[in-house]
């Protein structure tokens, strides 16, 4: 009877009896079971951060939105196209927050254009069309999902073509535009708790490591070198976890991120 009761209670809790064996702490420098670290890093989508801002206040997303040119000129260098694709997808998340359906549809079309230039349009077109269709219906939740999927599909196609470095640049472009939007919102209505969202040192370190591992030819491209320099400037401003980030620091990070995004979008407006 006792045994039966234990089984019932365990089933009700949806857990196993081994639950209590979970270590309450680990040494992160000496991981349990000799665990090594998975190389793949999932970069947060902008909406993951924006959702915190939405809970903390009423950001003026329309003021943060930077419409993408209808006649965007595709850059000639693949590195810039990849970075630009990332920023355009991130802009899509801002446009969703602003509930600007016309701009979201424009972004869907721009994603197709840039994906074509990177030869990954076959993987992305379906997603981009879904972005456009769902923007028409103002189904914002689905648009966010399709933006995320469009980026993943583009990056998987690049991975299949052995273009992992370009794939990283897509992530970096998206992260930088997300950071620029985040700092713009925090700056407009400074609160200690929203400034705290800037504590992202592991992502910065990851991007820096990936840029450093790129072939020299790619690293020497002025735009890629500019990105690396900019990341180096942002790194000390993000501080250590648990420390406060000041209003001035938010402004400084915003200025650097803005300059980097401008570098990515330069010469793309006819």
């Amino acid at each position: 009877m006792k045994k039966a009761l234990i089984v019932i209670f365990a089933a009700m809790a949806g857990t196993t009896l081994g639950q209590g064996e979970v270590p309450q702490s680990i040494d992160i420098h000496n991981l349990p079971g000799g665990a090594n670290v998975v190389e793949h890093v999932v970069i947060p989508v902008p909406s993951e951060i924006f959702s915190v801002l939405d809970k903390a206040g009423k950001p003026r997303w329309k003021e943060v939105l930077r419409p993408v040119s209808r006649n965007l000129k595709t850059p000639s260098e693949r590195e810039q196209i990849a970075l630009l694709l990332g920023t355009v997808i991130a802009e899509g998340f801002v446009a969703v927050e602003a509930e600007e359906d016309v701009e979201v549809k424009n972004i869907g079309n721009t994603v197709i254009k840039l994906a074509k230039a990177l030869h990954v349009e076959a993987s992305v077109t379906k997603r981009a069309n879904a972005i456009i269709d769902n923007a028409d219906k103002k189904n914002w939740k689905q648009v966010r999902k399709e933006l995320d999927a469009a980026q993943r599909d583009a990056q998987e196609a690049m991975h299949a073509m052995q273009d992992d470095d370009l794939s990283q640049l897509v992530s970096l472009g998206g992260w930088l535009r997300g950071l620029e939007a985040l700092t713009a919102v925090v700056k407009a209505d400074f609160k200690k708790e929203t400034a705290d969202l800037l504590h992202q040192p592991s992502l910065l370190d990851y991007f820096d490591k990936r840029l450093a591992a790129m072939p020299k030819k790619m690293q020497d491209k002025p735009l890629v070198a500019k990105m690396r320099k900019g990341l180096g400037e942002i790194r000390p401003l993000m501080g250590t976890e648990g420390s406060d980030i000041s209003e001035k620091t938010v402004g400084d990070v915003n200025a650097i991120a803005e300059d980097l995004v401008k570098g990515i979008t330069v010469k793309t407006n006819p």
Partner: protein
Amino acid sequence: MKRIIPVFFLFVALLAQPHPARATIDDALTFALEAADPYVKEGYTVREDYWGGDLPVKQAKAIVHQLFKGNEYWFWMGTDKDNVKISVHVYDSDGRLAEAESWQKPHKAAARVVPKKTGTYYLIVEIEKSPEERTYWSLAYGFK
């Protein structure tokens, strides 16, 4: 020539098959996403990107991941193999167990985190028990 043709067709057939590791990680992902399903109805947004691989029994793998205070997160782990016990647990940057709850079921395990601070977290995945030498796993996450 007669010997070459069957070898050629075998080679072509092998090339035509999806990558077995990728296919198995995708199978594991199916279970992870199945675990996520009830939480989607609770408003969680499931990310399209995910982690995956294969592990021997009792050897853990760590995933470094950025979490934001103000969100809630679920991490769902899956495997397509039967009679396997898997686990996922989440620790903060000081190495303290950070999850609010966790569970283990056949083919699935999950952990929920309500971050006390924005920053780096460590997801520890493990195959606790398996009849296989190595077991494929996949990990997805969602936030709200």
